[in-house]
């Protein structure tokens, strides 16, 4: 379902504007599926969903598929509603060089919450 992420981000002028100083490679891992995402000045310009072929990333956010599914429910349950709730409980791992993440927190939080909008993201499709 995350193959819809670039269009969802890039069609939001406020989100792109918020990330205008951000250029970074990061990895969003859903279960065993790595999503390598390249952001250039706030826009997602590349998304690879192919298992992570020895690509570099500054930081990675990883959780089990069932955890992301609960996180992406339109009204998530307590403990599944925020990335830091997940990392505190051990349901998700945030690792690597966290500086680009921490200095663009609102941008990344809004990005990874986008799949809660079921009009943009189907529960079917590649990548989980």
């Amino acid at each position, binding site marked *: 379902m995350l193959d819809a992420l670039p269009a969802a981000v890039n069609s939001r002028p406020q989100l792109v504007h918020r990330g205008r100083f951000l250029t970074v490679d990061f990895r969003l891992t859903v279960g065993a599926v790595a999503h390598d995402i390249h952001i250039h000045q706030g826009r997602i310009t590349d998304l690879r969903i192919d298992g992570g072929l020895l690509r570099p990333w500054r930081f990675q956010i990883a959780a089990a598929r069932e955890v992301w599914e609960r996180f992406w429910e339109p*009204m*998530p349950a*307590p*403990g599944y*509603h*925020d*990335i*830091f*709730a997940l*990392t*505190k*409980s051990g349901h998700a791992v945030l690792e690597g060089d966290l*500086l680009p993440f*921490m*200095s663009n*927190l*609102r941008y990344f*939080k809004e990005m990874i919450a986008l799949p809660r909008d079921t009009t943009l993201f189907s529960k079917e499709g590649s990548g989980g």
Partner: protein
Amino acid sequence: MSAQLEPIVGRYLRTTWQGRPVRLYFEEAGGGIPLVCLHTAGCDTSQFRHLMTDPAITDRFRVLAFDLPWRGKSPPPVGWQDEEYALTTDSYTEIIRTFCAALELDKPVVMGCSMGGRITLNLAARHGAEFRALIGLEAADHQTPWYDTEWLNRPDVHGGEVCAGLISGLVAPQSPDEARWETLWQYLQSGPGVFKGDLHFYRADSDYRDRTGLIDTAVCPLYLLTGEYDFSCTVEDTTRTGAAIPGAKVTIMRELGHFPMSENPAKFREYILPVLNEIAAAGADG
């Protein structure tokens, strides 16, 4: 055309704190039983503005809230530019008791949220006889940290943005946008190192597992209310704390997070009014 004025009035109290002169800004509204409200770490009195404009509360309670030095309209003490701010149990307790004594509040109720909730446990354990009741919102004797506070004050990360970004998920998803974003705006304004300095108290100098056994709720009733979406002070943290204090009354608040009074005032009202009613009724009986 008449001006639409809220009933909240602000003034400055000149006092001393840790031996140094300070100017404390406080707001108040209403009349009756004094109800002193303590804001969360990295924030200020504006979190309590909804309580101060609710006649169901202000008809019976004189609601007061002060900005701790270093935020809102309370400046830091002279000389601040060459020191690193770090709140402690002693300094926090001192300023609350100083405020109540200076304003000659007769056995006030103190209600604090987050670190303000934590300190109510110390007030209960050490100074319970001075208070009519204590209310800890999002309060526990101890909590597990979930991030390194070094992120809060460094030149390569915007302090206000990172403070608000960290705590944004502590607001429940059901909270209305207007209140959510006002709550976050208060954190976006955070001065450099202020949230971090408050968290020195919260993280390093307030493990109260050693003193909850001293709390006598017959001397001073204790209420603990925690939102189910608060993953900082969790439902389990508050439940454990309450279970160790005979007579403490624990309420878990549905569809609320770490900032109940500001993130969803209408929902919080459903939970806090019965508590305040009980306190007012006890006063009438006594």
